[in-house]
């Protein structure tokens, strides 16, 4: 089994002000995993969009917003980020892909872009509902040259 290096998890309140803190955490993980600049940017964007969705949809109708827990785990080949929240079940993979991406801006819908960007910017994504929590797992493959033997 590959050796895993789990960073200390980050728990933040489920509000928009926490987004910058989450991005810093993901950035630190990306640096530790030696991701390329573009990979790191796409992963940061993906986590940010999913977290934004949790805050603006998941926790929007709740009387009190719950927390968001972020956990980075690095092994020889991958950087894995999990995002967990206590909002009602929401599976991002069940969202429709925006259909009219090539239409002029004043003639198209602009919903669903965040999830679209998130799922298209990383190598693998899974959603699970575990113990009344949503768990989003994002995986990015580390550059081959950086993988230790």
């Amino acid at each position, binding site marked *: 089994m590959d050796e895993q290096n789990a960073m200390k998890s980050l728990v933040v309140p489920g509000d928009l002000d926490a987004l910058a803190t989450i*991005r810093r955490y993901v950035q630190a993980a990306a640096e530790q995993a030696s991701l390329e*600049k573009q990979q790191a940017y796409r992963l940061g964007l993906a986590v940010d969009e999913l977290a934004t969705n949790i*805050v603006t949809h998941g926790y929007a109708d709740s009387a009190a917003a719950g927390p968001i827990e972020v956990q980075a785990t690095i092994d020889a080949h991958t950087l894995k980020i999990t995002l967990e929240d206590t909002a009602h079940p929401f599976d991002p993979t069940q969202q429709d892909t925006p259909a009219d*991406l*090539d239409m002029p801006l004043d003639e198209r819908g*602009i919903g669903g872009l965040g999830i679209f960007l998130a799922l298209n910017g990383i190598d693998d994504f899974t959603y699970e509902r575990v113990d009344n929590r949503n768990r989003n797992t994002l995986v990015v493959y580390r550059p081959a040259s950086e993988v230790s033997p």
Partner: protein
Amino acid sequence: MAFTSNLEVTNGIARITLVGELDAAVAPQFRAQVEEAARSQARRLVIFMQDLSYMASAGLRALAFAKQKMGSDVDIYMIGAQESIQETLRMTGFHHSVILLDSYDAAQIEAI
């Protein structure tokens, strides 16, 4: 870097300079300036992005709002957008509706 958005309108050209990271938390500031630019009846919107290091989809929604609010005949120029942000614009098809320039081109932008 803390996000800032600054608007200036001269001779029918609205110029917004974005600095820092544009996420859902700060997008309302950008959107408010887009609304102000629309109210000014500007015929062009020029967004300076050289020092914008990050843009989430909340920024895209503000751009779409700009196009809808100002009218489809108002061209939107984006100056100096970083490669990562350009990638986001291409992935979402926004590059079809805005004009991406590496640097400010007075001859092109100010010819009204």
